[in-house]
């Protein structure tokens, strides 16, 4: 079936089985490799993207549900050369270790600070539910607070 959506601001039409996970379409059809495959069970969050501004596990999201939606991946997070506040904060706090899960965490954080501009530690615990095998949680917590600060200062 043909499915149309916007991804990182660009209109796209794909012709695939509607049950194909959106992650497969993003990585294998559209060649955007920044979004990672982790567990394939919507558990770890490595595949987190935005669909209409909401954090979504793309490994468990049939592409047919993307019809008419606006999708953002890690490649579309920055505004051209201007890094997104989350990207700036991640650099400042030197968050990644192996880095594999980080795009998912960054996308989840970017969605959260749109909805919760000044997240508390409790907000972070309740809303960032991804998994990092390297255990970078402490640095991520700092970076999330910093990202919110940068975003609020830019506003």
């Amino acid at each position, binding site marked *: 079936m043909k499915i149309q959506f916007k991804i990182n601001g660009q209109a796209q039409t794909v012709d695939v089985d509607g049950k194909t996970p959106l992650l497969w379409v993003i990585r294998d059809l559209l060649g955007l490799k920044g979004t990672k495959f982790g567990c394939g*069970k919507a558990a770890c969050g490595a595949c987190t993207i935005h669909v209409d501004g909401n954090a979504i596990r793309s490994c*468990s999201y049939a592409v047919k549900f993307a019809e008419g939606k606006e999708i953002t991946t890690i490649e579309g997070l920055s505004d051209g050369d201007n890094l997104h506040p989350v990207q700036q904060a991640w650099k400042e706090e030197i968050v990644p270790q192996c880095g594999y899960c980080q795009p998912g965490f960054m996308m989840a954080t970017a969605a959260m600070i749109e909805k919760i501009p000044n997240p508390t530690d409790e907000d972070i615990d309740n809303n960032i539910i991804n998994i990092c095998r390297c255990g970078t949680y402490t640095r991520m917590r700092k970076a999330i607070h910093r990202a919110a600060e940068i975003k609020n200062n830019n506003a």
Partner: protein
Amino acid sequence: MLESTFNAIHIFSAIMKKNALVLLLLFLFVAGMNIPPISDSLADAPTQSSTVEPAPQATPFDVMTQVLTHQRCLNCHPAGDRPRQGDESRVHSFNIQRGEDGHGMLNAQCSSCHQSENNNFSGVPGAPHWHLAPKSMAWEGLNRIEIVQVMLDKGKNGGRSLEEIEKHLTEDPLVLWAFDPGVNNEGLPREKPPVSKEEFIKAVKQWVAEGAVIPAK
């Protein structure tokens, strides 16, 4: 003559030996059957003048509550702020919480993972408007009578009338998902309620038509 007499005796003897063996085997078989004493059997046997109580048939209430008390329903009617999941009703992984409206936390919504249909690749279940029942409709820890009392209590059920409850139970795709719950994250089918969707719908309609009576026990 002597020879023919001897032959006759020999044949007779062989037949008797064979019959004795048959009788012995028959005795051993009967002895092993653990048949109750004849007097007891006679005492229990129905007579033409007495009536035997038939096994009680499941009432529409019984059938309906077999579904309402199943984990496919209870998992999303928790008493606390954490959904349950799985056939063993464990607390939902990943610190998933109810949120203000039962749809999860602001950035960890049910719809982050659950779509409007089952995803049998990932094993994530899905149905339209996937969310938790409100806390006032908590069923966790209640018995079947208490569950139905809560279900009919307009102060707890969101002001729903009996007709609306009947519609919710028999038509809401989120409720009826229980009968088509897909596979879990290991690709194994989730357990379904012990009665079919058709039996459940029929029982609910009949229970409502007969006055939605809640039995004393």
